[in-house]
């Protein structure tokens, strides 16, 4: 059978699993503004996130409730409406970009970064990365230990580790992923 009119990827999951995965990914993009996943997941997440930002730009309570159907996390919902949506007020779509990376060692899966076109410190790319470095350096001692525990227990730790741990089973990601995500998070 031809797959005409069948948009979207199934990502090798059943409906519930896929929905849960995408919600987790969406939450992560909103909170960290930049996430690293497989190319397929990045592109699939992009489909949804773009639509959510467009709705969030309206900013009404009705729009908020509509978005809340997908973004169940209050912190993410607030950030989407209060900081991300105003940033894209003038942009007619295309709020995110997917940057391809090297294939993942292990399973050779094509990886990519999904990020918002405009990041938190506006128009200061070098400074931004410098700041992130500092943040990363400051956080590493605090976060490494809980993250490792989470790896072993596959359960909660501190906030950052807990989130990555809850996503990991779905995304089949290991420790490598945890660090960049944990850094981008706070």
């Amino acid at each position: 059978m031809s797959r005409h009119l069948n948009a979207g990827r199934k990502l090798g999951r059943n409906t519930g699993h896929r929905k849960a995965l995408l919600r987790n990914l969406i939450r992560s993009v909103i909170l960290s503004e930049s996430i690293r996943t497989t190319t397929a997941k990045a592109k699939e997440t992009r489909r949804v996130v773009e639509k959510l930002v467009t709705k969030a730009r309206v900013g009404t309570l009705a729009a908020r409730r509509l978005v809340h159907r997908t973004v169940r996390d209050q912190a993410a919902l607030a950030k989407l409406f209060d900081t991300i949506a105003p940033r894209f007020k003038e942009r007619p779509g295309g709020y995110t970009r997917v940057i391809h990376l090297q294939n993942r060692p292990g399973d050779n899966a094509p990886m990519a970064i999904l990020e918002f076109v405009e990041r938190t410190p506006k128009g200061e790319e070098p400074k931004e990365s410098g700041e992130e470095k500092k943040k990363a350096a400051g956080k590493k001692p605090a976060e490494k230990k809980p993250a490792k525990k989470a790896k072993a227990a596959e359960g909660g730790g501190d906030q950052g580790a807990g989130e990555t741990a809850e996503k990991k089973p779905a995304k089949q990601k290991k420790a490598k992923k945890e660090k960049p995500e944990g850094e981008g998070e706070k």
Partner: protein
Amino acid sequence: MGVPKKRTSRQKRDQRRAHWKATAPNVGACPKCGEPILPHRACPKCGEYQGRAVIEGKED
């Protein structure tokens, strides 16, 4: 059903396989650090793509 009358000789088999060739990947050089990179991908070494730092903490 049609069935081969003769076993394929080693020569014929190998002649057929002579055309199975691996293609070399299309490798370019990173404009910043000169590292070999695959097209349309951020440089794994310096983390740069299209003049912007993409991967944090990877700049040279």
